[in-house]
């Protein structure tokens, strides 16, 4: 199971919406061995493509070194699919090189509802896992809503939970 703060998911979805129709990608770092995603790092998609993403090699070295210096590891590696379901493609599986990471996929194919699913990918084997959202700070969430970010997503749909669960995040006007 991936346990992650709602604010981080919102930031990831906002990044994916911003880069749509290109695929967006990034990392959430956390302390080594903690399995806790703490620090959201949006990355450049060096391919700037609607169907492919690749971390810029130079940026990746800087970010990986920074994580090393802070005793962190990539807890989550995320990217978006902009026209298809959020399920790892054969390309995703062949490139998956961080066996300890949660591979989070966001689909932005629906402009209203972001679909979010998380996977472990080890030795070419894909295993879906549930996503559990935790609310770190309701206060800061309200302030996000008040700011009226046009890229804010209205609702989320998670592929695996007890059943598919929709989280309504409509600003309360």
């Amino acid at each position, binding site marked *: 199971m991936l346990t992650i703060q709602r604010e981080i998911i919102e930031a990831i979805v906002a990044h994916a919406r911003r880069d749509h129709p290109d695929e967006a990608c990034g990392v959430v770092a956390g302390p080594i061995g903690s399995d806790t995603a703490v620090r959201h790092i949006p990355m450049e998609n060096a391919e700037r493509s609607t*169907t492919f993403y690749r971390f810029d090699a130079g940026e990746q070295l800087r970010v990986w070194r920074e994580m090393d210096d802070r005793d962190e590891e990539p807890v989550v590696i995320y990217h978006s699919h902009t026209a298809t379901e959020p399920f790892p493609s054969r390309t995703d599986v062949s490139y998956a*090189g961080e066996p*300890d990471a949660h591979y989070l996929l966001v689909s932005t194919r629906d402009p209203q509802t972001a679909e979010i699913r998380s996977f472990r990918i080890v030795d070419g084997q894909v295993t879906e896992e549930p996503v559990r959202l935790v609310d770190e700070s309701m206060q800061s969430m309200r302030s996000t809503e008040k700011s009226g970010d046009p890229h804010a997503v209205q609702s989320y749909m998670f592929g695996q939970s007890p059943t598919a669960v929709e989280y309504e995040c409509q600003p309360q006007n």
Partner: protein
Amino acid sequence: MAIDVRIPTILRSYTGGAKAVSGAGETLAALLSDLDGSYPGLRGRLITPEGGLHRFVNIYVNDEDVRFLGSLDAKVSDGDTVTILPAVAGGAFGLAAAAAVLGR
């Protein structure tokens, strides 16, 4: 003196779990051959059967991506740090199609 080589998590099964190992050689190709003597199989995860650098990895000499330094011909010397990272890539496209379009 030797060349310090940083090994990513996914390849540490070849190095007995070590995060960093040392090797010798005047080029990246020579260094990887040297390392393969101590850590058999490691080289095969970095170099394709055709003899090119595998697209699934990034290798850096100090701060520079070796793709800008002549790839396997990149010069290395004692005191350098070579870092190996898994390339983070993927996407909705099929791999064969992506490789064709990207010319890799």
